[in-house]
């Protein structure tokens, strides 16, 4: 059996047992050693305790998703074992807390098992909290995790907390190594060897949105905490003062959105980040952004709905609300990100678009991406173009809502003499005066829709993937499902299947011609998405001539590549 380059380790147990830090250390050590990382986490909706899972996938090549299942499963407790034992299929490896843990597993045929007495050893060391260090030490030995980089990572983490704390943790780590060394390695799973350092950063989706905001020269952020979006604000709150910007915690999402509009009127690049319930509350004010033509970026990190729903779970089910969630005819630009790299780059782009088109831009992320840490090329701050709103040149009489050729009416910042004007929530004339006659309303409705149409050509064409020419199945998908589809397509193509894919990130307005051109080369179109109704499928049906086959799941988890592979085989 050849060594597997692409390794997936799943660690699970009770929240608070250091599951997350164990995973983070492995991820950081591997990234430091030049490997690529994609992590996946699920948290309980409760604060303390509850089942917690951290899956780290690492490879010398780029990884696009969390994988089908694990290669290695590390169980910190009996609950974790019970919930995952059906996945301990022949060929997998099982590391568990024992003897002395709270359970005694049965080892299935064909599964390699390593018992590591994590709890017992930690207790013997005098602190139960060192359990994860013991585990980490054992895993480093068992799976070839680069020890040099791991020690560096631990040192960076614990040294600031005190030499004694560092020492204690390193001791537990060493104990773990010792325990592992007592085992004979009988499986083939090992982390790929270090390839020399790459110029990367390791960052989770939410922080990456925050970083994109900083790089996009954000000036104002208003936040109200809402899982799974809060880390965007957390990142921005720490960094934005450095660039002289302002973050305020508002009393609710309505106030957040209102403050964003207020700051935007004052000429600042402004945004907020929320999840479905918050987006719903902002509906009325997003309509004001449309009507008054005030730039505003709203990031929606989607979670399981409806209502309070499944606050910590993954779902892609706010597309209807994002596109249609306003009274009246209220156009907006809707984008969706695939991965952490997009979180950085597309946040910059989204801030540019909202300034350019003076309309609300809603950028959709999701619960699994929010917490997924990934390695990405270190962004170069100087590489980003910053597009500013068109500002009045001071010539002639100023008309805020002037019908210009490109339908973009120059704005005037407060303080500019002669630029006095109203930001109007009522229908209005070119000067902004209230007017309810047929003509201004018809003209402005047209303006509000037509002015954003050029984004379709401006935005990079949706990426394509898979076979050239005619395909039996064409996949169209969005959000973090794209990364899953990429791997599914690669596998199917490798198997000789005629499959291709298209990955739109500009969702609305829809690049209809691109959809049509793609579909013209496919016998059928499959649209996998994590929601019940097939929300993207709906828009494809409504706006194109395509009759897609929806493939929807809604169990709070992302797709696996295998699911998509199987579905394609099923329908082709």
């Amino acid at each position, binding site marked *: 059996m050849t060594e597997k380059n692409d390794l997936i380790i799943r660690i699970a147990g009770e929240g608070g047992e250091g599951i997350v830090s164990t995973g983070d250390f492995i991820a950081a050590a591997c*990234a430091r050693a030049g490997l690529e990382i994609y992590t996946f986490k699920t948290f309980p909706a409760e604060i303390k305790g509850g089942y917690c899972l951290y899956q780290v996938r690492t490879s010398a090549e780029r990884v696009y998703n969390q994988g089908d299942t694990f290669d290695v499963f590390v169980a910190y407790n009996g609950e974790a074992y019970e919930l995952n034992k059906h996945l301990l299929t022949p060929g997998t490896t099982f590391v568990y807390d024992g003897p002395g843990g709270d359970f005694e597993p049965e080892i299935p045929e064909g599964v390699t098992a390593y018992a590591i007495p994590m709890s017992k050893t930690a207790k013997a060391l005098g602190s139960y909290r060192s359990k994860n260090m013991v585990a980490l030490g054992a895993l480093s030995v068992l799976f070839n995790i680069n020890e040099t980089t791991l020690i560096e990572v631990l040192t960076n983490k614990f040294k600031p907390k005190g030499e004694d704390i560092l020492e204690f943790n390193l001791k537990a780590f060493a104990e773990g190594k010792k325990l592992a060394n007592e085992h004979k390695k009988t499986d083939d799973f090992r982390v790929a060897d270090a390839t020399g350092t790459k110029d990367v950063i390791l960052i989770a989706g939410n922080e990456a949105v925050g970083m994109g905001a900083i790089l996009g020269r954000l000036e104002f952020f208003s936040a109200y905490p809402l899982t799974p979006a809060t880390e965007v604000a957390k990142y921005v709150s720490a960094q934005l003062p450095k*660039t002289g910007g302002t973050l305020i915690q508002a*009393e609710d999402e309505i106030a957040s959105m209102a403050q964003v*509009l207020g700051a935007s*009127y004052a000429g600042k690049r402004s945004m907020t980040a929320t999840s479905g319930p918050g987006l719903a509350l902002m509906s009325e004010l997003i309509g004001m952004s449309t009507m008054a033509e005030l730039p505003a970026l709203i990031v929606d990190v989607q979670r399981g709905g409806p209502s309070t729903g499944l606050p910590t779970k993954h779902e892609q089910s706010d597309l209807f609300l994002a596109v249609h969630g306003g009274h009246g005819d209220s156009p907006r630009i809707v984008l969706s990100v695939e991965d952490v790299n997009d979180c950085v780059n597309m946040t910059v782009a989204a801030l540019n678009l909202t300034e350019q088109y003076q309309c609300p831009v809603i950028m959709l992320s999701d619960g699994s991406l929010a917490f997924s840490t990934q390695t990405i090329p270190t*962004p170069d701050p100087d590489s980003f173009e910053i597009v500013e709103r068109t500002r009045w040149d001071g010539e002639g009489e100023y008309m805020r809502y002037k019908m210009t050729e490109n339908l973009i009416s120059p704005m005037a910042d*407060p*303080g500019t003499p002669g630029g*006095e004007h109203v930001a109007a929530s009522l229908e209005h004339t070119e000067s902004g005066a209230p007017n309810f006659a047929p003509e201004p309303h018809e003209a402005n409705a047209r303006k509000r829709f037509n002015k954003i149409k050029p984004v379709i050509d401006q935005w990079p064409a949706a990426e394509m993937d898979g076979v050239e020419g005619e395909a039996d199945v064409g996949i169209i998908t969005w959000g973090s499902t794209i990364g899953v589809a990429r791997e599914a397509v690669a596998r199917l193509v490798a198997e000789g299947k005629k499959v291709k894919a298209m990955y739109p990130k500009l969702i609305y307005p829809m690049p209809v011609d691109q959809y049509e051109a793609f579909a013209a080369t496919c016998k059928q179109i499959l649209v996998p998405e994590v929601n019940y109704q097939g929300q993207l499928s709906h828009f494809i049906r409504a706006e194109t001539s395509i009759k897609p086959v929806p493939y929807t799941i809604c169990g709070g988890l992302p797709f696996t590549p295998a699911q998509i592979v199987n579905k394609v085989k099923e329908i082709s």
Partner: protein
Amino acid sequence: MVSATFNKIEMKPKEYKSEIKPVWCPGCGHHGVLASVYRAMSELGIQPSDFINISGIGCSSRLPYFVKSYKMHTLHGRAGAVATGTQLARPDLPVVVSGGDGDGFSIGGGHMPHMARKNVNMTYVLMDNGIYGLTKGQSSPTSRREMKAYITPYGGVEEPLNPILYMLTYGATYVGQAFAGNPKMCAALIKGAIEHKGFAYVNIFSQCPTFNKLDTAKFYRGLVEEVPEDHDTSDMENAMRLARRPDGKAPVGLLYQEDRQTLDEAMAGLVELVGGSADYDLKKIIDKNRP
């Protein structure tokens, strides 16, 4: 907002009129408030392009249209929250909200405490007519119980609220009250509010002759009584006592004023604390995420 921070200009009150004519009914108190705003602006020598006037929805909320200035006509209840964003974005310019009792204390009531306790450096002029004017006469949070209104045809069922007591409780750092029929006092209070550094609230009784047949100009004239000359405006307890006068009279004049750090000052403090500036080296921020 301290007046020293903006450029003075000489303009007569009427020169602050915009090209849009007021749409209010004859006899509406809001006319008086508008005149007071012009007057306060003129006395302060504010340049129209340096003035930001923000409102929600209501008859009162139409006021900014009639003032030469930067202005936003936003959504019902949201003027204060919008203005908070504007003020933080442009702490160098005076920001004034003008709105109604329904706009401010019914749908907008959730924003009020937070502007006040955060001491957002702006002025809030509330035109209190005890009614929803624009929607044709429903009872508002300051309507009296005996009022029969549009969807309370058999009379009201709740206690009216006391705006100035609320604002004292919320921690507004400037609290005044006046009657629209006394534009001189209104203008003086609005002027003082704009000059004040911090969240300034001015409650103006402003009769709605069209729909509120109880709270007429005459009624308000009899209701109000000037704050005693010897009242110490730094004395919160006495201000509260005045706001809750057992004889039911409503005090007019300046009730309370306090100097406290404003939200924009606090925010500027954060920027200073971290050594922030527009040309901060972004690479330093990015490097924090190296593995």
